[in-house]
């Protein structure tokens, strides 16, 4: 299990290649990555704030819960903070499992919990000015399925 909270960009392809390399006991690898999306009013920049210390604890707790619930070989979580430009990678999760259903379910679980339970906050700057992204009710609802 690997949890990284970092300001620096990461190379998603390289991370996934490394995560998948040399596994002969896992049949399935699922990855999710979140990218900074351009908004309709022209996103200029995104700033991600987090709670150092709690962030790592929260992500570790979520990953451990995923490992309890599904038969997983490994879990990787990388989440950035600081200033990001449109198209940049914000974060990624990867799960390795003997079977695909476990790998998919665990990756979706990680994302749903990470979204609403890990202490990150996004601030977007557009031509209209800067504003904090509001949490979506759908994200809170998504937790109820687990």
């Amino acid at each position, binding site marked *: 299990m690997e949890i990284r909270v970092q300001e620096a960009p990461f190379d998603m392809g390289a991370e996934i290649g490394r995560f998948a390399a040399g596994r002969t006991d896992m049949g399935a690898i699922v990855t999710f990555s979140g990218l900074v999306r351009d908004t309709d009013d022209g996103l200029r920049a995104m700033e991600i704030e987090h709670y150092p210390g*709690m962030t790592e*604890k929260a992500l570790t707790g979520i990953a451990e819960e995923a490992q309890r619930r599904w038969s997983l070989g490994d879990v990787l979580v990388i989440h950035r903070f600081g200033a990001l430009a449109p198209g940049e990678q914000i974060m990624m999760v990867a799960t390795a499992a003997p079977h695909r259903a476990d790998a998919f379910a665990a990756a979706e679980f990680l994302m749903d919990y990470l*979204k609403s339970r890990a202490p990150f906050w996004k601030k977007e700057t557009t031509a209209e000015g800067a504003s904090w992204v*509001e*949490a979506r009710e759908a994200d809170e609802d998504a937790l109820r399925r687990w």
Partner: protein
Amino acid sequence: MTLDILYFAWLRERLGLPRETVETEAATVADLVAQLVAREERYAFVFGDTTGLRVAVDQVLTDFDAPLSGAREVAFFPPMTGG
């Protein structure tokens, strides 16, 4: 009891400070909030409606009824928007 209080995102911006240290005998998070609100106008604004806020005690997400005995760090913030 000495508590570190941390604020994040728009709470931090509205209060104009990321953290502060307070001396308090508050029994619960809600008691602590009441003390802060009584102290200054800007706290009243930020904590006017706590239903939209989240709180962590010693870096664990909890609720406003949570006891503070033994606590060292309390953080207030809006709902998270990671991922």
